[in-house]
């Protein structure tokens, strides 16, 4: 390549050489030719002092610009040459990126489906203005039965298949494992005055065991005592709740009269499901009547006058409804889990498949119940 004579041309020539260079030695030669002690640019800079003073400033600026651009190009070329060498030095076969790794053991963590349904249920009721209450699992006969209009010898005590403790309370009353969350109503109303909207979740116990009954299960108790509240509101609340819980506005449900000593009128609420998937059925899905099975998920009704009296309220002035919702059955119908005994068996395979990620939202999916 012929060596150009003007500074601009020399600059271009040097940059071209730097771009072509493939080794550190070549680069060093180019650097010495331009910037070395005897390099053309070094010489030119030295010669500035020979120029007449008015021209020195412009010439200095121009030459320094040329120097900066060459230095920049040199540094860039040096990095290129250096890393090119490195790339060739690594054998491509050394790291087999296709080797399998395990997922983080943290991913094995699961929330029990019951915990998820509990969280969602609490969130739904909180959004409807319900407060939360709690009560003990070891109860007295008074709170569990008598206060709820189930006197001794009443056949409803039979219905409950109660677990009794060997010991009695300090005042000699028999102690038992609560058979429902309803005693929390009585306890809460010892300090509250209407209007009241509260829920109380918890474990309850009955001596019973099969696919749809376990000796321990979970309920959510709800109590609403407000002016002009009646069965229509109870039904509306239940529909809203189920719609938000299942994320479907048309859950097929059945309300039928029933009997509880602590409510009058009383109803039970069933949700339809199909035996194959064991999931809650939706209206208009074209499920034949023969295929439908019903599962009771709640007992409900208007608070009985005797229970109101125990709450120091008057039947003619106060009214309200209460219900006990079976959380286990709700979870069973939501997640398609037919055997309630599996909920408490501690089988890791079951927990891994039926359980939920701890990162699942503790509130139900946003859904407009209409």
């Amino acid at each position: 390549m012929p060596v150009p004579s003007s500074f601009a041309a020399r600059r271009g020539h040097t940059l071209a050489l730097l771009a072509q260079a493939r080794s550190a030695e070549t680069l060093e030669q180019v650097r010495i030719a331009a910037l070395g002690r005897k390099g053309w640019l070094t010489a030119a800079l030295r010669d500035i002092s020979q120029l007449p003073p008015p021209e020195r400033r412009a010439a200095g600026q121009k030459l320094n610009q040329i120097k900066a651009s060459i230095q920049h190009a040199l540094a860039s070329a040096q990095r290129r040459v250096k890393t090119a060498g490195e790339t060739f030095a690594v054998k491509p076969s050394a790291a087999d990126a296709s080797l399998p790794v395990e997922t983080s053991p943290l991913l094995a963590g699961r929330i029990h489906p019951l915990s998820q349904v509990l969280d969602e249920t609490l969130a739904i009721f909180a959004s409807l203005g319900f407060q939360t209450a709690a009560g003990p699992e070891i109860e007295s006969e008074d709170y569990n039965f008598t206060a709820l209009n189930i006197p001794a010898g009443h056949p409803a005590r039979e219905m409950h298949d109660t677990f009794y403790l060997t010991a009695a309370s300090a005042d000699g009353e028999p102690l038992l494992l609560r058979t429902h969350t309803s005693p929390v109503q009585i306890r809460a109303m010892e300090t509250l005055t209407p209007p009241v909207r509260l829920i109380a979740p918890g474990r309850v116990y009955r001596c019973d065991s099969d696919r749809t009954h376990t000796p321990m299960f979970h309920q959510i108790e709800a109590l609403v005592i407000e002016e002009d509240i009646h069965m229509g509101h109870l039904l509306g609340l239940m529909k809203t709740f189920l719609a938000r819980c299942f994320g479907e506005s048309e859950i097929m449900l059945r309300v039928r009269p029933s009997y509880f000593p602590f409510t009058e009128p009383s109803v039970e609420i069933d949700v339809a499901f199909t035996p194959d998937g064991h999931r809650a059925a939706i209206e208009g899905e074209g499920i034949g009547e023969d295929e439908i099975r019903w599962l009771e998920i709640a007992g409900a009704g208007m608070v009985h006058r005797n229970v109101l009296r125990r709450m120091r309220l008057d039947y003619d002035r106060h009214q309200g409804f209460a219900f006990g919702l079976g959380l286990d059955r709700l979870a069973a119908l939501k997640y398609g889990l037919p055997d309630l005994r599996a909920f408490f068996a501690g089988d890791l395979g079951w927990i891994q498949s039926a359980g939920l990620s701890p990162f699942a939202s503790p509130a139900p999916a946003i859904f407009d119940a209409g």
Partner: protein
Amino acid sequence: MKFSLSWLRAHWSAARPPADIGRQLTDLGFELEALDDPAPAYAALKDLRIAEIASIAPHPQADTLSLAVLTSGETIVCGAPNLAAGMKAVYAPPGASLPNGISIARRTIRGQISQGMLCSEKELNLGDNDDGLLVLPPASPAGEPASSLASRSDPVFTIAVTPNRPDCLGVRGLARDLAAAGFGKLKPLTKIPPLAKKFASPLKIKNDAPDLCPHFCGLHLRGVKNRPSPGWLQDRLKSAGLRPLHALADITNYFALDRARPLHVYDAEKISGAVIIRRAEKNETFTGLDHKIHQPAIAAETACVIADEKTALGLGGIIGGEQSSCTLATRAVFLESAWFAPSPLARTARALNIDSEARRRFERGVDPLSTLPLLKEAAHWIITLCGGEASAVIEAGQPAFRRQKILFRPASVPRLTGLPAKPARIKSQLTALGCAVSQASSRERAKAKNAFSVTPPSWRPDLTGEADLVEEVMRLEGCSALTPLPLPPARPLQNQAQNRAQNRTQNQMQTLSQLRRFVAGLGFAEVINWSFISAEEAALFGGGHERLKLRNPIAAPLSDMRPSLLPGLLRAAGYNAAYGRRDLRFFEIGPVFDEQGEHTACAGLRAGLPSRHWRAREKKPEKNPEKTPENIHGLFDIKSDLVSALAFLGLPAGRLQAAPAQCRWLDASASAKLVLPQGGAAFFGRIAGEAAALFSSPPAWVFEFRYPAYPLALKAYAAPYADLQPALQPALQPVRRDLAFVLDEAIPAQNVIAAIRQSGGREIVNLTLFDIFTAASLGSGKKSLAFEITLRPAPRTDEEIEKLMQKIAAFVAGKTGGRLRDRPA
């Protein structure tokens, strides 16, 4: 409760298909549990015929087989034990196929030609019975297709009757409810002619327990010839799930099932002297009709014994005795119709654990006014079916019943249900249920418009207040008539104290939910275990108090309220290890019980074999002696889980002091407890061999702590930085210095850490133990602990930092005897 459609039709008429009747019963509050309708199965038997067996001959080559000749001429080889000449059965001719797909052909069986086969219930897909042929009613038309039986089949309903409705433990009561809902018509009862009282009862009655049995009626029947019941009665009892015995027993059972009126029949010749109603005598026993020996004195206060002058005959209203029971040989009977007080009877039956149709009705409340009329009606039936003549009725006491009036305000219907108030319709509904409806007094009407007065019938002990009548209206209208309404907007609780109490519960539940998700995020799977465990497990884990035992556990290993969550986790570990699962991490958050009361606890477990994955081998944990090859999880893994959970709850996790755990279920050499600032402790360590063996669990590492009764506000993640905030000066780089101390091996690291923190004060923002080292060069029984100390960012000179390090070193030396090993620059 079970009954057939034809039985219901004896009381009720409407041309409705069985499915509609079932739905209506559910709508009335009697949930249909099953509807067994054989009609579709019969209808499928088009190829099969109804046959009459003309004669039977033994099979010449086989003892167990017979040759049945049909009236239509065919010969069939048959092995059914109930084969009899003259019976009607279902016949499958050659060329026909059975519901299970089997084709019938002419076959030779042991040398004899069989022209088809006779079928069992199971072969016809009509039931499970495969013991013999299905016996058809004698009136079945021989030669007709078997599918014609569809129109004669009788569906059976199984319904649940709530305990407030004793009247509906009789088919008549259900018929009345159906008709009251406008669904079909109730048929009037057949009029019974008055009994001819030919003689006085030779047996006298003596009532020594009128409080338990306020009303007792009986009569004597002589010249009776007991016999099997007629077919229709047997069929009805069978549809109810009862085994027909003989007419005397069957009639009394039928009155219980049909009219909800239990009766009892005694063989009068087996009663000595008189019928005595009395309390239980000490140590007396009798054998019941259930063939069990009963001791009425177990319920001494409430048991009502029916006895003669020698012995106890039975328990009134609960169960009769074997000794005085009727047989086909019975010639004279004493028929009892009594009314027993429900509450003592329920207590007695429960104490003695006896279940019977009579008990179920009496404890719920039998119609007190039915005692005398239905005694007479039953006597009429006995005379009709078995002959004989009845004595005059003998009676002790009188019906325990007072009519009561309920003031009913129609406006209460909308008030409680939202349904419209239609006084005329309501009146007719209540009347159809048997209530007497009359005008309320003018004073009452002045207070409530349209109010009327309702007197419930004697068979409805559940109707005692206005709301009960509102429920009747709702039931008869049907729940589908209710209109769902949204709740009005919520109003806050009236006072702040109430609000605070509710918020505390709400916060606690929310915190537990977050803790649950956090622990699951550490890789643990949540389990929910029974709150009860075995006595042995409870005792090992510090429980087993007498006060916390169940009197009636569902199974022996579930007898004690759990003092700890760990037994449940260990059981799960043992269970899953048996299934070959390797890496086990479980946790539970739930209730535990001790003599102080109930607490919420949180516990976790790690157990299992190392993964066989190549990377797990690559980083073999040789340097950590506590990690044995059988167990990848070590003491410090479980401690880290525990401390993370505590830190998540806002506790100063890094500064909690460790102390010996001193509990039987933890291995003393690899366990400790952390003392919690608000009381109590968090335990962690390796499960002791004894405890692991009890659950067949692999070696396991566990932690457990009880959630504080009044929790700290959740300050997750905020706590570690809280100290740092005021001094944070981002422009300055943090200063780090390493200090290594040589000290006696027996001195716990936490003592050194405490000394460093105490002497460094707020200057120290982080302290990391980065090396533990033992070597001969340090001297025997010595160890070296090396710490990296991070100082609060602040303008400081090297001399100031050096001075601080010297101060710390001196303080540590004073507290622990540790001397500085070397000082990296």
